[in-house]
């Protein structure tokens, strides 16, 4: 019963975290903030889901496979986020705060969804 409740809590928290990451990916103004929202929630969301499923499975071959999936996601997800940010930086995409006009309130018609406009 306790294991069942813990599993519920893990799955619901993981689902909430995933939806929060999705909303962040959808609403943040530029690429780097979006990557922050997606990258940070992704790993913990996966960990909570797999922990919740592992509590259901007990100590079996299924929970070992879940642990392997968790290990791969734990290693590859931050690496993918890092290489994405690195590639965007090399590719010449500037963070939104590197443009001083964004901090200036009288440019209210600046379209933040268009990064081409923010480049010098």
């Amino acid at each position, binding site marked *: 019963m306790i294991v069942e409740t813990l*599993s*519920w809590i893990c*799955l*619901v928290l*993981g*689902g*909430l975290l*995933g*939806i929060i*990451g*999705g*909303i962040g*990916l*959808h609403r943040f103004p530029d*690429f780097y903030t*979006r*990557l922050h929202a*997606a*990258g940070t929630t*992704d790993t913990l*969301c*996966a960990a909570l*889901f*797999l922990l*919740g*499923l592992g509590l*259901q*499975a007990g100590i*079996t*071959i*299924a929970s070992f*496979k*879940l642990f*392997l*999936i968790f290990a*791969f*996601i734990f290693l*590859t*997800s931050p*690496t*993918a*986020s890092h*290489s*994405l940010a690195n*590639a*965007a930086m*090399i*590719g*010449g*995409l500037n963070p939104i705060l590197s443009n001083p006009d964004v901090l200036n309130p009288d440019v209210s018609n600046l379209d933040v*969804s*268009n*990064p*081409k406009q923010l*480049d010098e």
Partner: protein
Amino acid sequence: MMYAVAIIAILITILLALVRALLGPTVYDRIAAMNMLGTKTILLIAVFAFLTDRHDLLDIALVYALINFIGVVAVLKLVEQGNLYTNGESSVDVKSEVGDK
């Protein structure tokens, strides 16, 4: 019940990521969205394996976890240097293409 709630949450997240992948002004937004979508697909397969009580589906989730990472890195390399066969040097001028892909 528990698995159904988890699957619905994952599907909502996939929908949001898909909208970003379709809208995303730069190519990097699309890659970030597809990376997130891939991770959520792994979780979807894992939860589905428990929902239908077919634990052999976890092998597919494991393979998907590996392929997803390799796919993201390969697409990044393709975007960055314009091809997949040279080692490091770029064959296109990337800076001129960031905004409109």
